[in-house]
């Protein structure tokens, strides 16, 4: 039992026991413990096995920064034991070791694998013989990764929430600086959110005797109205948008100013065996003592490069740990904690560090001496080595926001050199490590953010200026730092630069030898910085090694690009809520009731068919069919210039269209390519009703309004696409059905082909267009969407005695193909011109009006097209796949099939295809190659059904 007597500010509740299981063993903990602290008290020293070599790893940072304590909790892999609170009954299991954490057969990779598993070994080995690859793959797949995901785990299904947040100021990091920044900004009137990744704000204060002070700051911030998000790490910055993950909620925070008080990350030291359980960072040891009252060891050695390790040594002594020796890399540490240590009779060895550590399962001795000495040194038998390799400012989030860092020679790390607009920083990330300076920099940043947003007054500005001045003055006693060498010694044993991916100093040496001599290349080759710690523990050591190996400076090596997510996040957080805007016609429910097969068509849900597309098509020919075409784009274009506006947008003419008449239009871009098509009905002198294709509606509305913004014509455009239902009633009995529902004269003479009339149908005000997309006498009826279902019902009821059938998209495609009516995007592509698509008649180059596409179309009119869109028929019954290739006798493909169907009405296979222009004549023979079949076809240029349009005009 290594639980200490009560520590001021400890997080545990000594009266409340919590029990959980670890690999089946029952562990009793206290409320407030983390899995890590509880297991440590229970005697566990090995927490995980490493990625490649399956080496034992123990607690290192105790702050969720390193990969050493990753476990699976209740089936969820990748949980950090050192920060995850214990819960009654939770099931904790080790990862990446088999059969057990204590006995792992894959350990052999470490014992024999050194020479066989250099960086990139997976590119170099397991290649030959090739036929063994399936076996290799199985082995590698088993070996790769850390945890195991079960494919189905219903018990882990949980809901994640997206929550958009807005604030004046977002503070990331709840240490002394962040709390001061948040409180100051809020006190000046700003709306402030503070996101802190820990279970309680306070940062280093929590473990370093400042709990009371931290809680005071929290109280002050809350009183000023700061909203504090706990257990809420920021994941990245995206142009000012900061996602913060908290439990099951992803806060997406947009604040006008962001203050990053993200602190600094304590760095490890590189020496042979530096990953052995028992080697712990000073911050980790202090967190175990201060927050969880855990005695981290009995006999300890401390190795440090600055005062941080000395403070840790004092804390260890306070906790009853015997400190045998403190190795300080600085030649002359003096003042402050060194004096206190001497008074406690702790041996302080200057200019020295750890040369190697020994121990089989865990640490049992440490060798101390001046760096680089490969022989000798003083050996201390101990069970704990506390190291502190200096600090690296946590600048990743700031760099993602556009901040830049540069190498600070004196401190031996990359420090902030440039901040983007709207981003402020405070605390240790800026180098203000001492409490007073950190707090003052927080107050300054908070005040600056608030002032920039117009809060505060002359007094508050004066205070901020004074604080800034005091910050700028050099502190009375600068805490000196010794910059550690890349590795302490060249002795035997692996010296890990990257704990996540098991990359050693030697691996980086090899990667440079192989030519990966830039840090970004080396990163990708060795995968250093790409593991769970995201460079927190390995970026700086890797840069040091690269500088040494390439013989360049730290500045020249530089850092890798920091990318989100900065903090490990479950994938579910990114899966988020499904926003899939689905448009539905107002008649949609009826289609469902009629048994429609519903499919996506653009962003609409549409009836594909009602079970029997062939019968539906035949009903249109034999009696009548009703199809919902509400998805068509529907625009009102009105104004004195409306005719001219359309004349400028379409290659054909609309200004001379008579009121009450309809004309087909194809819209082209200035490159002369077909964009969309539709019908246009002139309602009266100043009002046109324009329909577009279903999928083109949005783009054409934008196209119209864009040109209107440019031309400034006296025209208004209103998009009624979603406001109107539209149905097409077509077939030989359609006229009789209409006659039952409207007083409008629907006779062949009274309502002719391409007339557009308004009338009530079944009591609903309608615009009725006599057009013939499907080739039979048809009425396309448009009405207010709120009454579309009523119109549909009325037409179905009235048509029942005549045999009306609903028909879907699929039969419509067949029916229009019989008429050779093209589908934009199906029969045409972004290269198709109206000439090539067999519609030269639609281009009116003699129009006095300039129009979009005119110049290009003039050019194409003179240049015979190389390919042409034609119809074809096939004599045998095989329907070619859309996209099948049109072949010459011999040679390469020269065209493709765009549409093909079997027509029951015509008794043969019909289709459309792009073919060489020379073949675009009736009776030309083409060969279609459809996978293994070759089909002989005959070109036809006029519609397959009712070629002269007699039925339509009847």
């Amino acid at each position, binding site marked *: 039992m290594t639980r200490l007597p009560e520590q001021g500010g400890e997080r545990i509740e000594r009266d409340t026991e919590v029990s959980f299981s670890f690999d089946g063993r029952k562990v009793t903990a206290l409320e407030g413990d983390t899995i890590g602290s509880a297991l440590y008290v229970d005697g566990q020293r090995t927490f995980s096995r490493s990625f490649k070599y399956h080496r034992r790893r123990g607690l290192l940072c105790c702050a969720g920064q390193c990969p050493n304590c990753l476990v699976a909790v209740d089936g969820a892999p990748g949980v950090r034991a050192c920060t995850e609170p214990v819960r009654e009954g939770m099931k904790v299991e080790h990862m990446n070791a088999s059969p057990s954490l204590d006995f792992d057969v894959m350990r052999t990779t470490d014992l024999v694998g050194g020479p066989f598993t250099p960086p990139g070994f997976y590119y170099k080995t397991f290649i030959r013989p090739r036929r063994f690859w399936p076996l290799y793959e199985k082995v590698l797949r088993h070996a790769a990764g850390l945890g195991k995901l079960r494919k189905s785990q219903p018990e882990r299904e949980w809901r994640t929430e997206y929550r958009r947040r807005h604030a004046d100021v977002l503070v990331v990091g709840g240490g002394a600086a962040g709390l001061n920044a948040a409180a100051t900004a809020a006190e000046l009137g700003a709306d402030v959110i503070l996101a802190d990744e820990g279970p309680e704000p306070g940062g280093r204060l929590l473990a370093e005797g400042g709990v009371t002070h931290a809680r005071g700051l929290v109280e002050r911030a809350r009183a000023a109205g700061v909203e504090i998000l706990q257990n809420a790490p920021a994941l990245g910055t*995206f*142009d000012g948008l900061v996602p913060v993950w908290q439990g099951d909620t992803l806060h997406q925070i947009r604040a006008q100013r962001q203050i990053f008080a993200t602190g600094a990350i304590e760095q490890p030291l590189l020496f042979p065996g530096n990953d052995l359980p028992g080697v712990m960072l000073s911050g980790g040891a202090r967190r175990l003592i201060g927050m969880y009252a855990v005695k981290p060891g009995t006999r300890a050695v401390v190795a440090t490069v600055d005062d941080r390790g000395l403070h840790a040594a004092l804390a260890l002594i306070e906790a009853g740990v015997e400190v045998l020796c403190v190795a300080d890399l600085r030649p002359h540490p003096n003042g402050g904690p060194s004096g206190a240590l001497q008074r406690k009779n702790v041996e302080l060895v200057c200019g020295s560090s750890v040369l190697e550590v020994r121990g089989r399962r865990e640490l049992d001795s440490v060798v101390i001496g001046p760096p680089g000495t490969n022989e000798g040194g003083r050996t201390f038998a101990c069970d704990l080595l506390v190291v502190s390799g200096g600090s690296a400012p946590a600048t990743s989030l700031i760099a993602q926001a556009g901040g830049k860092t540069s190498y600070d020679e004196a401190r031996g790390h990359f420090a902030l050199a440039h901040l983007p*607009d709207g981003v402020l920083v405070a605390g240790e990330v800026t180098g203000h490590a001492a409490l007073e300076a950190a707090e003052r920099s927080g107050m300054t940043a908070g005040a600056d953010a608030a002032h920039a947003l117009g809060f505060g007054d002359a007094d508050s500005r004066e205070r901020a200026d004074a604080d800034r001045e005091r910050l700028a003055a050099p502190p009375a006693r600068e805490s000196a730092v010794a910059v550690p060498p890349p590795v302490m010694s060249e002795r035997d044993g692996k010296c890990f630069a990257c704990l996540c991916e098991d990359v050693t100093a030697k691996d980086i040496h090899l990667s440079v030898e192989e030519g990966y001599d830039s840090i970004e290349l080396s990163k990708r080759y060795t995968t250093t910085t790409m593991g769970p710690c995201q460079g927190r523990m390995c970026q700086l050591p890797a840069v040091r090694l690269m500088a040494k190996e390439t013989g360049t400076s730290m500045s020249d090596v530089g850092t890798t690009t920091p990318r989100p997510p900065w903090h490990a996040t479950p994938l579910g957080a990114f899966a988020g809520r499904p926003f899939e805007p689905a448009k539905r016609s107002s008649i949609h429910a009826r289609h469902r009731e009629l048994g429609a097969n519903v499919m996506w068509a653009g962003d609409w849900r549409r009836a594909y068919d009602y079970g029997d597309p062939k019968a539906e098509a035949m009903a249109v020919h034999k009696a009548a069919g009703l199809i919902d075409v509400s998805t068509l784009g529907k625009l009102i274009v009105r104004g004195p210039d409306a005719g001219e506006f359309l004349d400028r947008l379409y290659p054909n003419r609309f200004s001379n269209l008579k009121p009450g008449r309809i004309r087909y239009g194809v819209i082209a*871009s*200035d490159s002369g390519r077909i964009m969309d098509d539709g019908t246009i009905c002139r309602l009266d002198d100043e009002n046109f009703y324009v329909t577009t294709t279903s999928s083109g509606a*949005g783009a054409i509305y934008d196209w119209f*309004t864009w*040109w209107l913004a*440019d031309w400034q014509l006296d025209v208004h455009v209103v998009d009624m696409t979603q406001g109107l239902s539209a149905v097409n009633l077509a077939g030989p009995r359609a006229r009789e059905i209409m006659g039952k529902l409207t007083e409008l004269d629907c006779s062949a003479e009274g309502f002719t082909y391409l007339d557009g009339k308004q009338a009530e149908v079944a009591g609903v005000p309608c615009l009725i267009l006599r057009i013939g997309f499907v080739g039979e006498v048809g009425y396309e009826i448009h009405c207010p969407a709120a009454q579309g279902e009523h119109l549909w019902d009325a037409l179905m009821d009235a048509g029942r005695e005549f045999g009306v059938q609903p028909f879907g998209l699929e039969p419509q495609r067949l029916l229009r193909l019989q008429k050779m009516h093209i589908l934009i995007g199906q029969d045409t592509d972004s290269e198709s011109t109206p000439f090539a698509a067999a519609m030269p008649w639609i281009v009116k180059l003699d129009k006095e009006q300039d129009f979009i596409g005119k110049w290009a179309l003039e050019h194409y009119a003179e240049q015979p097209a190389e390919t042409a869109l034609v119809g074809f028929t096939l004599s045998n019954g095989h329907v070619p796949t859309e996209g099948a290739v049109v072949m010459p006798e011999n040679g390469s493909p020269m065209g493709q099939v765009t549409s093909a169907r079997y027509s029951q009405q015509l008794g043969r296979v019909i289709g459309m295809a792009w073919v060489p222009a020379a073949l675009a004549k009736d009776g030309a023979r083409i060969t279609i190659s459809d996978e293994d079949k070759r089909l002989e076809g005959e070109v036809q240029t006029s519609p397959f059904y009712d070629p002269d349009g007699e039925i339509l005009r009847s």
Partner: protein
Amino acid sequence: MSYVLICPNCGPREVTDFGYGGELNPRPKKTPTLRELGEYNYFRRNVAGVQREWWVHRSGCGDWFIAERDTRTNQVHWTKPVSEVFGDGPDTAGAAAGGADGGGAAGGHGV
């Protein structure tokens, strides 16, 4: 990419609210040569730097407007209504505005 644009009518909104119309690409005032037509249709300056471009507040007011943006940083220097940039009245914008399918609406207005 998730920066904020200020719609001249609606105020600041996430960029996903908007449709992009590409850099200003004036439509020729008179019949272009084939080469001029090709350049207008298919060539863009595509600067790494500050450019003026068309945007439409598709999810909001629906208006087209002009923005000046640094393509390297996505910093938007200003946004203005079309009339403020080109003046009012028929066709005044034609001198400097317009688009074709190279990067604009015909291509589907993708952002």
